[in-house]
């Protein structure tokens, strides 16, 4: 079926090459000097430039705006309506939703020897965290997404709260997104709980059930007198939300909680900020005042605020000071950023390749980050105000952490970039739709391939050779502007001058070293066997086992 999408041959001015849509739904342009390979999913907007009367070089053709920080311009010949055909075909397949066509992931027939859909199993993940326990239980109240249609089917809630309690709390939380457990500290048992804003409104409504519910959460740790609430928004925004029925937990109503605002701005601010980043890096890099231009985008400042917020959440929990409740307005953008980053700082499991996949699958995909709306998969409405690079911003924060802790993550930069590329590509089902209930209706796991199938069947490519597995180490990145950098290898990767700076040779060298290291370990084992035979004289050679052992123990 996908082959029917056909090959679109066309000639570009200057270079006579074929540009075609192949069966992988990519725009591929082959020339001896240039290979262009663009998944159609990445296209955000297609415009015709120039008209019949256009003269001059490259003034007639198509302009394609992409979601991944680049624009493409095809200069075409004016004869023979080639542009009209190309425009129509491209529009059709880049924006299938507007033409009642399926998204490519549903047509993709790739096969992998690993099934990425098996990576995340919520029961297993909660069991890994030691749940359920005396204080927390797993509930199936949302099995049919009746309590909250944007939450996953399986939730972890306080043992002492009944399902009826949950239903009453849901009425007081925006879109019924009640406080549920995201993560529990293995030793001090403090927790990270996520939800949406309370529906306080202009009149300052209160809800006894919600108040009691938060107190039950606090009481899961007997010795702690206060529950900490982090409202991700700036204070003024939280107040302004009252006008539309939202708000925040007031001191009067919630005696045993203290609330802090984290000053992180909303999706619109982030979208505009990234747009400014694109303006200074594409097509040409702003050279004369690079740093102050970069500053004026405020992108790194937003990164700093998100990281700072996550650090505060992580610190509260790891120090055992109190349990933490995180929300913003709806609890699916900033909240997901904060909980997932804090979990990444606290729990070394999430720093492995599969652990990170589980983290994304859990905190982002299952808890209803609206990927379809934020990315606009297959949708032609490029100016949609719902679009926003929230997930990209999260990945950027992860990259900043991996820069500061070069040995703490099992995955490398390519892993993060691959995730971002397929966030847009529509080749996999992983990021499609806004929530679990929609994905279930569309039978995504049956009808599409998971991105993790691609990655996990070729893991070596995505491994950081310097990874040192550490249990229980909490990572606190330095979230000061001095230590944050623009992620040049992602944001400016299309610039040919930057391209040669990509760290391919380093990776090559790392891989070489890794192979040699494995060989070394093998030989060492042989040596130890030989040495154990002559235990009487341990000091004969510099490679005596006592000296070598530490290397073995700290290996991957």
């Amino acid at each position, binding site marked *: 079926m996908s082959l029917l999408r056909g090959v679109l041959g066309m000639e570009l001015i200057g270079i006579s090459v074929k540009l075609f849509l192949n069966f992988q739904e990519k725009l591929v342009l082959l020339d001896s000097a240039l290979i262009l390979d663009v998944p159609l999913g990445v296209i955000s907007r297609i415009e015709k430039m120039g008209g019949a009367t256009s003269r001059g070089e490259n003034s007639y053709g198509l302009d394609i705006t992409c979601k991944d920080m680049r624009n493409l311009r095809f200069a075409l010949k004016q004869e023979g309506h080639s542009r009209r055909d190309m425009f129509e075909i491209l529009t059709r397949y880049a924006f299938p939703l507007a033409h009642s066509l399926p998204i490519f992931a549903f047509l993709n027939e790739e096969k992998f020897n690993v099934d990425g859909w098996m990576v995340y199993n919520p029961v297993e993940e909660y069991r890994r965290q030691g749940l359920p326990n005396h204080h927390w239980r797993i509930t199936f109240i949302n099995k049919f997404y009746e309590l909250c249609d944007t939450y996953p089917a399986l939730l972890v809630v306080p043992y002492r709260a009944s399902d009826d309690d949950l239903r009453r709390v849901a009425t007081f939380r925006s879109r019924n997104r009640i406080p549920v457990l995201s993560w529990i500290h293995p030793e001090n048992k403090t927790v990270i709980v996520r939800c949406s804003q309370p529906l306080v409104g202009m009149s300052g409504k209160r809800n006894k059930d919600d108040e009691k519910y938060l107190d039950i959460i606090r009481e899961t740790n007997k010795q702690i007198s206060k529950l900490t609430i982090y409202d991700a928004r700036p204070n003024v925004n939280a107040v302004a939300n009252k006008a539309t029925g939202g708000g925040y937990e007031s001191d009067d109503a919630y005696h045993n909680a203290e609330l802090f605002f984290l000053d992180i701005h909303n999706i619109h601010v982030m979208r505009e900020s990234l747009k400014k980043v694109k303006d200074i890096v594409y097509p040409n890099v702003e050279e004369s005042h690079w740093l102050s231009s970069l500053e004026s985008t405020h992108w790194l400042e937003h990164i700093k605020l998100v990281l700072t917020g996550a650090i505060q959440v992580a610190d509260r929990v790891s120090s055992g000071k109190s349990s933490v409740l995180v929300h913003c307005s709806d609890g699916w953008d900033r909240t997901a950023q904060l909980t997932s980053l804090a979990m990444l700082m606290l729990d070394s499991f999430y720093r492995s390749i599969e652990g990170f996949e589980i983290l994304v699958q859990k905190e982002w995909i299952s808890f209803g980050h609206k990927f379809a709306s934020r990315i606009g998969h297959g949708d032609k409405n490029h100016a949609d105000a719902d679009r926003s690079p929230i997930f990209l911003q999260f990945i950027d924060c992860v990259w900043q952490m991996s820069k500061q802790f*070069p040995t703490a993550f099992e995955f490398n930069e390519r892993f993060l970039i691959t995730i971002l590329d397929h966030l847009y590509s529509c080749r996999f089902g992983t990021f499609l739709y806004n929530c679990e209930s929609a994905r279930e209706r569309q039978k995504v796991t049956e009808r599409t391939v998971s991105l993790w199938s691609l990655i996990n069947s070729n893991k070596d490519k995505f491994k950081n050779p310097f990874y040192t597995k550490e249990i229980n180490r909490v990572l606190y990145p*330095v979230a000061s502007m001095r230590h944050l950098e*623009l992620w040049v290898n992602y944001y400016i990767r299309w610039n040919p001058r930057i391209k040669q700076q990509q760290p391919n040779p380093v990776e090559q060298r790392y891989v070489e070293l890794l192979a040699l290291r494995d060989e070394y370990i093998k030989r060492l084992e042989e040596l130890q066997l030989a040495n154990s035979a002559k235990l009487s004289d341990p000091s004969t050679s510099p490679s005596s086992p006592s000296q070598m052992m530490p290397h073995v123990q700290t290996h991957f």
Partner: protein
Amino acid sequence: MEFSELIRTGRAQAELLRGPEAPPLRGTLCVTGHHLLLSPGPQATSDLWLLLLRSVDSIEKRVAGDSGTITLRCKDLRVLQLDIEGVEATLDIARSIEALSSLESVITSFPFFYRPKGLRLGDAWHFHPPEHYYKRVARETNAWRLSEVNEDFSVCPSYPRAVIVPRAVDDDALKRSARFRQGGRFPVLSYHHAPSGTVLLRSSQPLTGPQKRRCAEDEEMLRAVLAGARPGARGFIVDTRSSQTAKQARMTGGGTEAKAAYPGWKRLHRPLERGRPLQESFVRLVEACGDLEQSMDRWLSRLEGCRWLAHVKEALSTACLAAQGMEREGACILVHGAEGTDSTLLVTSLAQLILDPLSRTMAGFQELVEREWIQAGHPFQLRCAHSAFSHARPKHEAPTFLLFLDCVWQLGRQFPLSLEFGEGLLLALFEHAYASPFGTFLCNSEKERCLCEVRTRTHSLWSGLNQPKEQRKVRNPLYVLNPLAIWPSVEPQSLRLWQGLFLRWTRPPEPSEVAWEKVWQIVTDKEKTEGSQPTVSAPEPQS
């Protein structure tokens, strides 16, 4: 002179604060002729804390009640705080430190007293004499010869004894050319690029003056350079001043090569900042990096406002220009500014790193620093008298050498496998250039070093650095020989603040050190597997 006259008080009880990352240290504080010691008490002698007084850049004292506080800002950009019991003791210690840290006499400085275990005096001074390199070039080319015209430093006081000049030019002509160049710095060979057969030269400005004087021997020399390269070869003169500044220099006796007088040579102006503006840029940057109160929202524009990265960019792009001229255009290059002891050396040494794989080895880089900076007469004593914290009005201070190290760091960041040495070596060179127990960076020229008998009476930094125990700090474990030229990207987004230097004392060092250790571990494991010992120092490239 007796140091004891300058020491007002022997000892006092004090607490030392070393920044946010290190725990405070309590004990007996003691000033000696060259050091500040803090002995934490009889039970823990191994934790004796020691600071070379020479590395104190500025000192600030405050007394309150019956105790005082001394803040020491060091040349390596560390900030230390000493809380001292007793007002009198505080003031005395402060005065002692002030007096001892600003001693100008070279021969009473610490390197003349430093006698570390395991090193022998006189060792390693023979490691990197420029003669080795010059002899090799003379052997390889036939067009060049070693000259001893400056044997007694009379022709050019800032040049070393041995220089390399075109074979066709005799010593008398050199002397006359020297009289036509500021400070006697006549054009000499800096680097021979064998693949293209071209050479890199350096000198000072010609003394054309307002009358536009000429010098036949000087012109003949540059003609001989082109003739020695190949028939019809061209040359570029890279003047590190703007054409306006170069013209103005005529009024004070300097100037620039007239086009008509030097056929085949074309002049290019690439203004590089030097002297006071460069020092001020450094001071502003260090101030910004140390200003922890400042609202971080303005960090990037403040960083830009310091202009330090702009200087890095200019230095690298001028070096690229010189290197490109040789490699791509097959032209000879002469680099000079005014005195030819600062930005000139910056450009010639960086151009060599870009082109020459040997200069990127551990031994080759040390040789480069020795030949192109120390022997070439960069006035280290004047330029590095003070670092970024001194309140005194800068006289001759300028961080030209630090700018060079920063550019090398940028090269290393962009080509992580191509340099045999790591950030540790660059940090060590920065520290030792400003204050060191070794004699390598003492004085302003080879002539002065000979007068002070530096070679026989002090230890060389190179022997200190090449000890096996230092190797993990200074070598790059990922190094693989890269035979190609390494062309750096000088786009502003490719250049970074050198955090390892400028934020060294304010960031937690741990993660990057862990990573470094990890890389080392992998590499040494590999070497053990192969059954070979880690190479302590690569064989000298010269012989």
